[in-house]
């Protein structure tokens, strides 16, 4: 492959530097998530030429364009469906989907559950910032209850999704969650997910400082990142003990795995081998 990156991770080897500075707001967690992804790619030795990044619409959707790879910025909610076609057509490509909480869980919810069920070898990074940032800060399926958004002027009255439980129940081969604060841990989780032969769903707890943070008085970027530390617990921590005190805490780390057959392998075995011309 061409453009073999240097042994030491230099993020600029993986970025379209001519597009920088990127368009995200100051302190947006998506940038940190992108770093973790690129770092994981580097450590896995995945070639940029062989990498396809598919994203949808929203802030998360625009992140993909900064990666120096084959990047596809598709329609709202559809990156998983698009990636399904791409991966089936080109099993040789490493396919990563970048999506957001609105993109993946609201308009694209149907595609998510079926992508989990099919268990195609795709890695899906859900950049969860609890809000529709691009359109100005409307409520999303993962907005914490009682938080303010531009469409919940008296506080969000809808319960939030636990995206990882949803993915696990729908049959995803690998499910994990990590916060941007723990960048190396996030990188390792992405590595583990990408190495899994099947659908890997990774929820990245990102943050929207400028719109969501401001609206809810959550402080500046440093405060919002630190708040992650208070709100989330590693799965190994034994969180059941302090659930009483931390009703919002979500587990991070590898949350579930299964050994369901990968889709293309199943297709080869059950369909292609039986087809006689």
């Amino acid at each position, binding site marked *: 492959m061409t453009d073999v990156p240097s042994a030491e991770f230099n993020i600029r080897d993986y970025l379209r530097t001519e597009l920088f500075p*990127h368009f*995200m707001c*100051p302190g947006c967690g998506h*940038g*940190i998530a992108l770093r973790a992804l690129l770092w994981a790619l580097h450590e896995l030795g995945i070639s940029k030429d062989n990498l396809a990044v598919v994203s949808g619409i929203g802030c998360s959707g625009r992140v993909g364009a900064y990666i120096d790879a084959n990047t596809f910025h598709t329609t709202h909610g559809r990156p998983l469906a698009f990636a399904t076609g791409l991966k089936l057509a080109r099993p040789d490509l490493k396919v990563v989907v970048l999506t957001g909480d609105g993109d993946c869980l609201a308009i694209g919810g149907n595609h998510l559950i079926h992508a989990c069920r099919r268990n195609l070898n795709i890695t899906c990074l859900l950049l969860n910032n609890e809000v529709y940032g691009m359109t100005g800060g409307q409520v999303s399926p993962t907005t914490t209850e009682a938080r303010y958004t531009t469409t919940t002027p008296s506080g969000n009255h809808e319960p939030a999704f636990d995206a990882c439980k949803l993915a696990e129940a729908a049959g995803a081969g690998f499910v994990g969650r990590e916060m941007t604060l723990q960048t190396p841990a996030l990188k390792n989780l992405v590595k583990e997910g990408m190495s899994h032969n099947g659908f890997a769903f990774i929820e990245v707890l990102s943050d929207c400082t*400028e719109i969501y943070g401001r609206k809810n008085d959550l402080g500046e*970027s440093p405060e919002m990142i630190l708040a992650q530390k208070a709100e989330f617990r590693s799965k190994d921590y034994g969180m059941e003990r302090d659930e009483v005190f931390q009703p919002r805490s979500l587990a991070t780390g590898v949350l579930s795995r299964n050994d369901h057959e990968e889709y293309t392998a199943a297709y080869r075995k059950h369909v292609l081998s039986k087809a006689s011309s």
Partner: protein
Amino acid sequence: MAVASAKPAPRAVARPQNVLIVGVGGQGVIMVSKVLASLCQLQGYDVKQSQVHGMAKRGGTVFSHVRYGERVYSPTIPEGEADVLVALEWAEGMRWLPYLEQKNGTVFVDTQQIVPPFACRNRHRGAVGGYVRETVADIMAHVPNSFALDALGIATALGVPKASNSVLLGAMSTALEFPPDDWKEIIERFVPPKTVQANLKCFDSGRDWALSFDRDGLLEKHAESAPLTVETPREKPDDLSHIDIEANWCKGCDICVRFCPERCLVMNDQQIAEVAYPERCTGCRICEWLCPDFAITVKTPGAVA
């Protein structure tokens, strides 16, 4: 209401008055234009206000057209026909100058400089060429009725930096026909109750500033002002860790400054991260990992991946 009772009969103007208010997201362009539009409406004029909020994101370009007169049809101001141009940010002011009526138009521009992400496009590493190069002297030489004011400075001096918009409103009020008391009444309605006094104080300061505008003095003061410059990181001996900051990529989120365990970094007066104490750096890379803008690279001697 007081304003209504004092309302003059709408002046028969030959054509609508055009006020163009520009800035970047988060500055309050829309607030300023709402104040003006409401004032015009209460004065009995037909008002049209049309605006674009960039991408609903901070830092993007935002503009608002306010047109008022006996009867206004089109909501937008054609190029070269703005009677008053109010810019809350320096580069935006420069960018919209062609919209100003060339002979008699008045421009109020805040000298505050905010480098928007898009203005940095296509800039090579280390270069600072993307931002406008015009200086205060340039614009004053070019546009006869130009007022370049440091609204943020004036408001900060009054102890309320967040009310710099009211300073601009005060300055702008000198170019329009409405009496100051009517302006103040509207401002009271638009700002949070706790900040009314502060905003009115700022309005007065802005108005006084414009009325006692000292063109020559200002020209002299700004004679040596240069476009935004960014310091390049200092050189360090090779045996220490080295923090390299791409100033053009930094958006000033403060994460690196706050998370550095050794307190190596500071925000400079341009809200850009800078290495203040390079000798303290241990090469832990937390600043690099958490920088959402990819602006920081930490080089450690003899590092292995």
